[in-house]
């Protein structure tokens, strides 16, 4: 007898994407998946905020003007998070762009929710 496997269905919604990467949201898991720098990584609420903080904190302008011969790499390590990124300056700029777009979309989604809930409640 043949058994049918039921694969739990996870629905992803694309929050924002650029030609360098994308961020998806999973409503059922309450988390986000970041497709960037060749890997797909899962971030919960706390870790997504920590990633945002870590990336936004990098002074890109300062790095560009800095002419020392140190490596052009940044390690983005997030406490209590399984993922870590080793990014070049160019990748950091791309990552920042991706995050900025994502948080703008999340903000927009929040505004819609806020207005809708107040009318239907």
């Amino acid at each position, binding site marked *: 007898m043949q058994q049918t496997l039921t694969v739990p269905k996870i629905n992803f919604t694309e*929050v924002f994407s650029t030609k360098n990467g994308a961020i998806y*949201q999973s*409503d059922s898991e*309450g988390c986000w998946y970041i497709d960037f720098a060749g890997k797909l990584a899962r971030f919960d609420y706390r870790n997504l905020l920590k990633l945002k903080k870590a990336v936004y904190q990098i002074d890109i302008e300062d790095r560009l003007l800095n002419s020392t011969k140190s490596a052009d790499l940044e390690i983005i390590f997030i406490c209590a998070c399984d993922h870590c990124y080793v990014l070049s300056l160019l990748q950091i700029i791309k990552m920042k762009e991706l995050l900025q777009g994502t948080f703008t979309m999340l903000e927009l989604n929040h505004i819609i929710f*806020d207005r809708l809930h107040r009318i239907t409640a």
Partner: protein
Amino acid sequence: MKDIIRVKCLLSSDVETLLNQQIKKEAHSSAIYLSMASWCNRNGYDFSADYFFKQAEEEREHQLKIYKYVLDMGGTSISPDITNIKLEYNSFREVFEDALDQEISVTQSLKNIAARCQKEQDFVTLEFLNWFFREQREEEYKARRALELFEVIGEEGTGRWQIDKHVGQIAYNSEA
């Protein structure tokens, strides 16, 4: 798409940032008052030293009140590091001038947070801030009254000794 961030936290990131700045400001106030207490004590103004010790404790309470509120609402409160605290004052009067300046700047920054809350229609935080506005009425009143003692009593002769004695008696008891 669900609004996951809203489920986790009531505060917008802007309001959260502003509240964390206020936490720092209250901590800074507390440190300043502590330093003022030290100066007054060293220079023989015992009543004023007590007054500032009490103020320092109150500011610490304000700091914790906001700190806990941010956490209760699902946000991240940040324990601030405080530097650059003035150690020496040029005169007894300068201490009180600085104290009033400090209270005014606290009121201003609270107004700034409230304005942001109003814009976002964050009525929850706005209501929370009401307690602080009431408190600022008292804080500014006391600081202003203390400074006025310098005019009313005058600093000549035993003036400063008199002023010091009266500082501890300043109380705000408006029912309005």
